[in-house]
C-alpha cells in the first residue's frame, strides 16, 4: 500500500481506501476518488505541491495533505 502523496510522476495505481476528515473525504468521493478507481500521477506543480492526477478520464488536482488520505496499490 502506498499513499497517493508519495507517488512519483508517471506512477500508476488503484485506490484501495480513502480516509481523512469527513468533508474532504466526501469531496474526494464526489470527484470520483473511490476505492477501485485507477490513478496516474501526471505532474506536480512547479513548486512541488499540489499534484495533478488522471482519474476516471479527467484531470484532478489536489494538495499533498489531501492525497495523504488516499491509500493505493501501485501497478507495476
Amino acid at each position: 500500500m502506498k499513499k497517493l502523496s508519495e507517488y512519483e510522476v508517471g506512477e500508476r495505481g488503484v485506490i484501495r481506501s480513502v480516509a481523512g476528515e469527513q468533508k474532504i473525504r466526501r469531496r474526494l468521493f464526489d470527484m470520483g476518488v473511490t476505492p477501485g478507481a485507477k490513478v496516474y500521477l501526471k505532474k506536480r506543480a512547479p513548486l512541488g505541491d499540489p499534484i495533478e492526477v488522471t482519474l476516471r478520464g479527467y484531470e484532478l488536482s489536489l494538495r499533498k495533505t489531501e492525497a495523504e488520505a488516499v491509500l493505493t496499490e501501485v501497478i507495476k
Partner: protein
Amino acid sequence: MKKFCLVGNPNCGKTTLFNALTGSTAHVGNWPGVTVDKREGVYKKCAEPISIVDLPGIYSLSPYTPEEVIARNYIIDEAPDLVINIVDATNLERNLYLTTQIMEIDVPMVIALNMIDEVTKQGSKIDADKLERSTGVPVVAISALRETNLDDLMARAYEASNKKRSAKTVLEDTALMHLVGDCKIALEGQKVSNSLFHAIKLAELDELEVKAHPDSAKMVEEFKKTFNDDDFGSDFEAIVADARYKYISKYYSCVVSKTDKEKTTNVKVTESDKIDKVLTHKVWGIPIFLAILFLIFHMTFSEDLFYLGTMGVFDKEVLAYDQAGNVLAVTKDNFDENFSYYTKGGDLADLTFDDDGSLASVEAIPYVYTNDNKKVFLKEAYETENGRFFAKENGKVPVTVEKNDGEYAIVYDSAIDEFSSEVTINTFFGYEESVYSLGVVLFNTLDTFTGFLSACASQGLAQLNASEWLTGLLVDGILGGLFSVLSFLPQILVLFMFFSVLEDSGYMARVAFILDRIFRKFGLSGRAFMPMIMGFGCSVPAMINTRTLADQKERTATIRVIPFFSCGAKLPILTAVAGGIIQYAGSGNADVITYSMYVIGIVVAIISVILMRSTTMKGEVPPFIMELPAYRLPSFKNLMLHLWDKTKHFIKKAFTIILASTVVIWFVSHFTWNWHFIGDAEMNQSILAGLGGLIQPLFTPLGFGSQLGEWGWVFVVAAITGLIAKENVIATFGTLAACIVGAVIDTEADGGVSAVMQMINATNITVPALLAFIAFNMTTIPCFAAVATAKSELGSKKTFNGTLIFWIVTSYIVAATIYCVGSWWWTSFIFAAVWAAVITLIVLVNKGKIKFGKRS
C-alpha cells in the same frame, strides 16, 4: 409558464447551452443570500414559452458547498417541470455520478449528452439509445457550442415534462437498500415527498437531512451499529459513493466504444496535454504566467503599445522652414531672433532647443481670424479693441482672446466649439508618438463622447439662461460625477474580457494550481491570486472575480484587501505627491517613492489577510480538490453575453448609489453653510471645507491634521473628494489652488506636481506627513464604484459595514505608523512593541492559552 432547469458539472458547457437556448432573454441575478449567479431566460421555440433556470455547476448533491445546496433545494422545493441534466460526453463516468443522484428525485428529466462532436473528433462513439435504455431517461446527443440538436432536445424535454417520472436508484443491489427502504417507508408515513431521495441522503447521514428528519436519523444510527461491510465497515457515505461509480462503470460506460488506437495506448496525449506541458512547466510555468499577466495589463492600460514609441518607431525629424518652404538647418547657435521661421504648413513658428543645442520643437504661434479673414496673432488680437475674432476662416467659430498669467488664450463662445477644437484622431489612437492599447483607445472614445455631451449640456443651459448653480449641479455634479465613474467602464471591461478568456480557456485553474503553494501560507487558496492582481488595474472587476473562490471567509478577506493593490486611478496621487516631495526636499527619486508605496500596499494586504485569517475570518484553508478542465477555445458569444451582463450591472450601479453619493459630495463642496452657491474658486467657504476643518483634528496623528494651521483641511477635503474617483484627489488640489493663489492650476499639464507644491507651501506639511497622506489614500475606503461592488459582492450588510470600518482603521494605522516613525525614528520601538504584543496575544488566544468571555 413551464419551468425547466439546467443541472450539470462545472465546465460541462451548461452556460453555453443556456445562452444558446435563451439568447437575449437571459438575465443574471444572485441566489438569495449568496453571491452565486442566478441566470434565468425564456425558450420560445416550443408549443409554449418555457422559462429556463441555470443552476450553479456542481459535482454532487451533497450539502457542503453553497452551490450544491442551492441546486438541491431548487430541484426539491421549487419543483421545476423538468430537469435538463447536461452531461459532458467526453467525461461520461464522472458526469453520470450526478445523474444517478438526480434520478432519485421524483422529477421528469432528460439527459443532454453535450460535446458529442468532440467525442466524434477523438474517434470514439457513444450509443445514446443504449444509454437511454439503461437509464430509462430520454437522452439527446447535442453540441451546445455548435447549437446542433437543441430543438430536438427541447422537443423531447417538453414531451417528458408532460408525464410523471418516479424516482429510481442505482443502489438496488447494495446491502444498504434494506435501510433505505425502511427510511423511505418512515418518511412516506410523515407525508414527505421525494421520499427515495431523502431516504438515501438519510442513510448517508447527510447534515441537512439529519436536521430535517431527526427521528429517522436515529433509526440510521441504530442500524449503523449493527452493520459491517467487508470493505468499508459502517461508512455509509463511502458505500453509496462507491456503489454509484461501480454501477456507472458496469452499465453506462459500455455505451462508449473507443477506437482501436485508444485501446492500445493507455494514456493518450491530446492537444490539451501538449499546451499544458508548456503552461505548467516546472521552470517556465511561473515566468509564462507573469508574462501573460504583464501583457494583459499592457493591453488594457498602456499608452505606448509594445513600447513602439519608446523604441523610436514614431520619431520624426524636427524641421523648421523659411517663408518659401525651404528647410533650414537651425541650431541654438545659429538661431536668429529677427528671422521668421515657419512650420511645414506655412505658419509662423516658435522654436525650442534641446540642451545639446539641436532643434527640439517647431510649433505654430497661435492665431485667430478677423472679420475680413485676416490672420492675427493672439497678442495683437488681444490689444485690438472691440474686435470680433474667429478660430477658423470665413467667420466660422466665434472666439474672444483673453490674457491669463501673461499668456494669451483663445476663449470659445460656444462650449461645443471649444470641445471640437481639441478632438483630433490622436485623441483616440495617439499615433503621433505612440500607439494606444485597446483599453486606452476605448477609454478615449468614451471620454470624448461624454465630453461632447457635457459640452452640449452646458451650451444648452447657457442658451436657456439657467442659473449658475443649476448649471453647476447638472453639468459638474450629475453629469461630471456620472461620467467620471463611467469613464472606468471601458478599461474594466477590457480587463474583464482578458480574464474571462483565461477563465473560459481553462488556464485560470492552472494558475491556481501553480500558485496554491504560496497562497496557502497566508490562509488562502491559489485562486485568490487572480482577483488580487486584478486590483492593480481596477478594484471593481477584481471584487467580482472573487466569485471563483468557494470559501465565503476567504472571499471576504480577499475583497477587503483588494483596494490595497493600488489601482490605476490611484497612480496620479502617487506620482503627483512623490513629485512634490522631491521638489520640496530638493533631492530624492520620485520613482523610488512611488514603487515603495506599491510595496507598502502589498505588505499591508498580506499582513491584513494573515491577521484576519487568524482572528475574525478564521477557518480552515479551503481544500484544493479541483478539476483541471481540458483547454478549450472560449466561445465569442458567451464572452460577449458575459461582458454585457457586467456592463448592465455596472451602469445600474452608476445611476443609483454612485450617482447619489457623487451629487452629495458636489453639493457640500459647492454650497456654503447658509445654502449659497459658490464656484470652484471659493471652495474654501463650502460646507465640505467646514466639515474638513471640523474633522481635521482627527488626522493630527497622521501628520495632516491640526498641526497644519489655516489651510490644513485641504488634505482632508481632497481625500473625501477622492471617494468619487481617486484621481479627484489631485484635481481637487488644482481647484483649491484658486483659493490660495487665486488661479486654478491645470493638473493635467504637469501631473499635478505644482498643485501639490502650492498645498505644501500653504500648509508647511512635512515629508513624512505627505507619505502618510499617500498611504492613507491608498488603503482607505476606495472609490464609490468599488464600494458599491464590495457591497453587492459581500452579501450581508454586517460584513459590508465591517469592511468599511476595516478600511478606515487600516488606513489610519498605516498612515499614523508612517508619519510617526518618519518624524520621530524612536517611535518605531513603540510600534514594534505594540505589534509584538498584538501578535503574541492572537497566537496565545488561538492556542487556547488565553480565553475571553464565555466562549469556550
